[in-house]
């Protein structure tokens, strides 16, 4: 299963124009400064925003094709999406939140235990910590049994302990999930640690030399198995 993106959208200050593929079982990290168009890219892939031109396909399934006027609505794309801020439904319990989009509710408890929140199933989101909420958000996204996992800076508001735990889980299970994972971040270290491929985006375009302009790039290149940079 491979995600293929070739899109163009006019934004207020620049055109978001990008083309890349994201293979199954691999995590593609998208990094870049704030306002580079990373979140817009994720939202377009999720179908939450329209694009001016281009195509988005997941294997043989065309989600967007502006030439054919073809658009698959968000609810029909099997996506798992985790945002930076906690987005659990406040009127539901943690378990109800996770089971909300799950085609098979028997997997909900397994996921909750895996993420260490099995004991919180009857709690409302407002009664648990931020880290626990983000773990629940991951469970919610994975319980959907997605064909594509989109992560929009999911670790940036977390404490070090929760961030390490979730990064570890993601590293461990990304190949087991066997779906394309697109991870937006502005943390180069995080992109390096998790990404099999790293794409740098600046002003809406893939900018390979953006990485080399960052002062901490030498540290990244010291990793034992560096990802592919583009």
């Amino acid at each position: 299963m491979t995600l293929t993106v070739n899109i163009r959208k006019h934004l207020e200050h620049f055109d978001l124009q990008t083309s890349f593929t994201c293979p199954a079982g691999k995590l593609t990290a998208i990094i870049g400064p704030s306002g580079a168009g990373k979140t817009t890219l994720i939202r377009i892939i999720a179908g939450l925003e329209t694009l001016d031109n281009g195509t988005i396909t997941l294997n043989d399934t065309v989600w967007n094709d502006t030439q054919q006027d073809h658009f698959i609505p968000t609810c029909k794309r099997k996506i798992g999406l985790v945002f930076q801020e906690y987005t659990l439904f406040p009127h539901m319990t943690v378990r109800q939140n996770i089971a909300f989009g799950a085609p098979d509710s028997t997997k909900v408890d397994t996921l909750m235990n895996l993420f260490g929140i099995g004991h919180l199933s009857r709690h409302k989101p407002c009664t648990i910590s931020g880290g626990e909420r983000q773990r629940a958000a991951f469970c919610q996204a994975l319980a959907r049994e997605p064909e594509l996992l989109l992560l929009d800076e999911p670790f940036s508001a977390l404490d070090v302990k929760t961030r390490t735990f979730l990064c570890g889980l993601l590293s461990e299970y990304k190949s087991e999930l066997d779906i394309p994972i697109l991870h937006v971040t502005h943390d180069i270290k995080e992109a390096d640690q998790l990404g099999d491929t790293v794409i740098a985006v600046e002003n809406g375009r893939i900018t390979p030399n953006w990485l080399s302009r960052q002062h901490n790039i030498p540290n990244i290149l010291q990793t034992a198995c560096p990802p592919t940079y583009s």
Partner: protein
Amino acid sequence: MDFLQILTQSQTTAPLWLTLKVLAVSGTLHLVSGILLSYYLTSKKSTMRSVVDFLVTMPLIFPPIATGFILLMLLGRAGLIGQALPVDIVFSFPGVVIASFVAGLPLMVKPVEAALRGDVQRLAEISQVLGKNNWQTFWLVLLPNVRRNVASGWFLALGRSLGEVGITLMLGGNIIGKTNTLSLEIYNAVFSGEFERALVLSAIIGVFSLIIFIALKRLSAV
């Protein structure tokens, strides 16, 4: 003044029962149509949506007596809509209900519309990502999260309906024993010099208003 004696007089009880019946019907209409209209007004911009928005908002900014006159022209026996209807709307119970409904509708719709346009939009996106269509998202996610706004809008609409005079006067006709609501009966009592009865009627409305105020306070809407 014998408060209890005035309270039990048919001149007092009849308008009271009429008002309660009107509030029951228009309150139900407010709840159902108010929620659906609020949701519709958050849809994509269109000419139809602008027209509906204008019609819903109009009673807030247009004088009630003039609104009532326009409705009288439309719903009267010779009116554009009235002549096509099988029953008489004006100077009858349905006329009073319509007056009450029209007056309270914007106070129900506008707060709910504003709430639906707010932070809950992010929850709606999550719901769609999790595979729910627009209607499922509305019933399962949006409505439960704006329920306090729905409740406070509903109480505001009830309060406005309770005090409605201008439109009711035009559409209902203030016919004694038939379309004279509590608010109109206060006017009638003052007009005929029965100040004590006007005071008792005002006290009844005051109790209703206090209940609505307490409800709104609990919902943190005022």
